[in-house]
């Protein structure tokens, strides 16, 4: 360490610049501590310059472990979480970076702590401190590792069942009969092979817990349960779920919309975990185990609580016709956006030629596109149920009515399908989105048809007249040895089309489309020239010519 801190010692007379060797090549410099008021002490503080400082590393102030969970803004390692050293590449000398850190320590940490100004700061980031507590209690042979919430906090304290999944050691805070539980169990596959029912007290809380207020002992938790659960629930909470098993795992979940805390209570049954080092977990007989709690409910996984529309989308059923390069990826987006139910119809099998621009990859070659997409999405997103139908769209429409469908997406590009959809909508009308791409994805279109607007009123299919380019016949190529036609485009170019379709489908689902229209993504002349010589935009699309691409909207009448 080639730094000379003697000048700093003169400026900060509480810094001792005698270096001390620390782990991983770091150097520590002790900081003289003030006289503390009773209860505000910590054993030591140190300026830590890690190996690589100043060029690759950032200086920090470290405190003794007694400061962790006693003083706000102290991380599990003892490092103070303040913006002190701006780090390399910001135009400061190493000496000035240390000065900034020492000033920050004194002015933004030590003084506020000593004067009590930081006392309420634990409430600012309660879950950070909870995770420190969880980490401190965690061991490799705990019967439960984490708890997953699948719904909103209850309005009042509720006794319910949860499901402990082994060997993952995840507790799902919902009963085995609830659909989302089954979906999560399926998603975890072998990691959820064994299922054990557990007792769960689900208790809403008004304020986040902090190290000063969270329950610290079994008797604290008993007091909380006695105060919040009714008498009958308290008795039930103690009882085994099955008569043959005397002991049962009991979990207390304490949560509100912003924070979640949980404890596995002592005296649960021994549990087979077989994690390589330990076969059986024996829960503590006396000490409750704090648990990390994660949310997997749709409001969080889909929209991080910032999209109120998720709860409406959860009830929607969307029929998607076509699981090709457009349909497969659009379905993925709809699932990520929280659409509750999707029926995906496609009779095709995935071929190697598809994988460059399809949601699926080589692992799904020779599998049904609809089934493989459904499987993938059902495993990935617990907020959505995709039902695959390995039949043609025409066939599906002949066999089913649209009575339970809230929106149809026709992403097949097939005239026959459009005709069949048109007929089905005459029987039972629901909103329709027809989406398609032109060659090279030089343009992509969504036709949004509200209730009452039909695609065809006579026998004329209007797709051709809506297109941006009149295409020469040789652009569509014949695949050797095959009757199907194809035109090569990149997945990157198609991403614009996917976004156009997905975004507009969600607008329809959210009830934000009030009049039927066509929205088109149209690339400019430079894009056309780069892909095929002599292409011209049709008159309605001329506006796009000077741009890389723009979205144009036209009424559909």
């Amino acid at each position, binding site marked *: 360490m080639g730094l000379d801190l003697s000048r700093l010692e003169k400026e900060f007379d509480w810094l001792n610049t005698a270096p001390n060797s620390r782990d991983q090549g770091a150097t520590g410099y002790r900081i003289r501590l003030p006289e503390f008021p009773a*209860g505000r002490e910590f054993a030591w503080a140190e300026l830590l310059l890690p190996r690589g400082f100043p060029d690759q590393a950032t200086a920090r102030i470290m405190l003794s472990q007694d400061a962790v969970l006693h003083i706000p803004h102290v991380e599990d390692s003892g490092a103070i979480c303040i913006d002190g050293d701006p780090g390399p590449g910001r135009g400061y000398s190493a000496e000035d970076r240390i*000065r900034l850190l020492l000033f920050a320590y004194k002015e933004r940490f030590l003084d*506020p702590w000593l004067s009590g100004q930081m006392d309420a700061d634990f409430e600012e980031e309660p879950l950070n401190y909870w995770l420190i507590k969880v980490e401190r209690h965690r061991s490799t042979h705990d019967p439960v590792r984490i708890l997953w919430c699948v719904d909103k906090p209850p309005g009042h304290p509720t006794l319910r069942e949860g499901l402990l999944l082994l060997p993952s050691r995840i507790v799902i805070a919902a009963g085995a009969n609830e659909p989302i539980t089954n979906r999560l169990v399926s998603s975890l596959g072998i990691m959820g092979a064994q299922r054990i029912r557990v007792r769960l007290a689900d208790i809403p809380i*008004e304020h986040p817990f902090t190290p000063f207020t969270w*329950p610290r002992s079994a008797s604290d938790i008993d007091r909380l349960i006695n105060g*919040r659960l009714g008498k009958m629930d308290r008795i039930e909470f103690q009882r085994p779920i099955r008569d043959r098993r005397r002991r049962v795992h009991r979990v207390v979940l304490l949560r509100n919309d912003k924070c979640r805390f949980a404890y596995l209570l002592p005296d649960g049954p021994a549990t087979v975990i077989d994690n390589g080092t330990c076969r059986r977990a024996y829960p503590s007989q006396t000490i409750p185990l704090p648990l990390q709690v994660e949310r997997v409910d749709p409001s969080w996984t889909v929209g991080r609580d910032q999209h109120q529309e998720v709860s409406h989308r959860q009830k929607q059923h969307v029929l998607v016709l076509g699981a090709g390069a457009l349909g497969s990826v659009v379905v993925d987006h709809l699932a990520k956006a929280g659409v509750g139910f999707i029926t995906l119809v496609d009779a095709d099998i995935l071929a190697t030629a598809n994988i460059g621009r399809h949601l699926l990859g080589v692992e799904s070659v020779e599998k049904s596109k609809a089934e493989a997409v459904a499987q993938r999405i059902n495993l990935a997103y617990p907020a959505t149920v995709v039902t695959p139908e390995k039949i043609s769209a025409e066939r599906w429409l002949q066999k089913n009515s649209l009575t339970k469908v809230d929106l149809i997406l026709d992403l097949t590009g097939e005239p026959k399908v459009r005709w069949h959809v048109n007929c089905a909508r005459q029987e039972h009308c629901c909103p329709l989105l027809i989406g398609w791409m032109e060659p090279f994805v030089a343009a992509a279109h969504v036709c949004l048809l509200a209730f009452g607007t039909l695609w065809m009123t006579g026998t004329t299919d209007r797709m051709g007249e809506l297109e941006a380019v009149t295409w020469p016949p040789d652009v569509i190529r014949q695949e050797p040895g095959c009757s199907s036609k194809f035109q090569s485009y990149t997945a990157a170019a198609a991403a614009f089309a996917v976004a156009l379709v997905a975004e507009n489908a969600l607008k329809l689902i959210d009830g934000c489309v009030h009049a039927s229209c066509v929205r088109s993504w149209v690339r400019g002349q430079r894009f056309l020239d780069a892909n095929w010589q002599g292409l011209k935009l049709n008159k309605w699309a001329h506006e796009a010519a000077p741009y890389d691409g723009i979205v144009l909207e036209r009424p559909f009448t």
Partner: protein
Amino acid sequence: MAATKNTRAIENADLVRNAESRRSKVLAQTLAKVQEGIALDDAAGNIRVFGPWARELHYVNQHIAVPQVEVDKAAEAYNDVANHLVKKLKWPNEAIKVLPQGSTSTQTLIRSPGNDKFDIDAVCQVDISRISAQDPMRFFKTIGDALTEYSATAKKRCWRLPFNGERFYLEFTPSVPLEKASSQDLDTMAPLYRPDQEYIGTALAVVDTPTEKWKTSNPAGFTKWVDDTSKRKLIRELIAEAADSMGKSASNVSPVPDQDVNISDTLRVAIRLFKRHRDMCARRSLIGKEFQPISIIIVTLLTQCYAGLHDLGRSYSHPVQLLVELAELIRDMVPEVDGEFRVDNPTVPGENFAERWNSDAGQRQTTFRTWCDILAADMRTILAAQNEQEIRSRVRDVFGCPPDSSRPNGSGGSGGTKTAHRPPPPAPITSGLA
């Protein structure tokens, strides 16, 4: 014939006798151990024995006080609003009077754990004989309209002024002094309950917006009742320290009382400490916030208990002893009359502060009992502490008080940095979403 409700006021002494007959006495036994060997009339001995607890409870009592600088700020805002109302309403100056009410006027205002806002309650009294505002809703709206600049929002009986960016909000309750109303007006106003004769001079009609009717209220009478009761002597040999003088203010605006209360003012200390205890129980989720005992019930029960103990001729050697007594008796101070729980408003006969206890499937009553049990258990834990350090740590833990703090001295106690060259702060960095 419809059954008539028994609304006869229950004597405080009877309430206390009833509570005494049901008490568990565990807390009293713990207290007796602390006092072992000390004669009841040994004032010096009792002060010595209870000293460590008294010091810590005093610390808590000080800690939970809303800092004077914040009270002053709120008082300033309160005066501004009062003056604004006087100007805006263009009613005769002497027709409007603004007074503090609730915990502000009873000197039992405490700060919430954490950084939550505190509220300053005020009642805006309008002499009905000088204006024409007999229609309750129109009267309520007139005051609200005059407060538009303060972004006032209507609540059940008051207007809330948020004062964004401040630690407090104000709640203004439009009201009419019943004393000033003619007998004809009084009948027209038809308040739900008639005021108690003892407090008739301060009785008001406020607007109950859900029913769109007048409702009798008596915040000043209530304050007087608490004040009068707190002056009754229950502690032997201890002299209460003189109260601090009140601040100055315009003649039509009563000042916000100083919130500094000495431990020898045991009734107010009990009210403040027990309210804080309730708040900490809610913070710790030991009781549900929705059904927690409301402050007016805690104040009423403690004041009734205090008054009842005095009526029965009880006396105590030390405020700590009295606090323990109140903590144990409060649990059974709510009588059940004709199948209904009752906490009578002493200044408005017939008004039951516990009205909602009778229509919530027992939730509030159970929560109240739970809180009382926790309070008694916590007091027991505190009394069982063996030395000063243990007493300090238990008291502060129970009441959610942080350790002592020191004033920043510019060096953080670590030495100076005055000669240190301060580099300019780093320029902000904008992160991209990825």
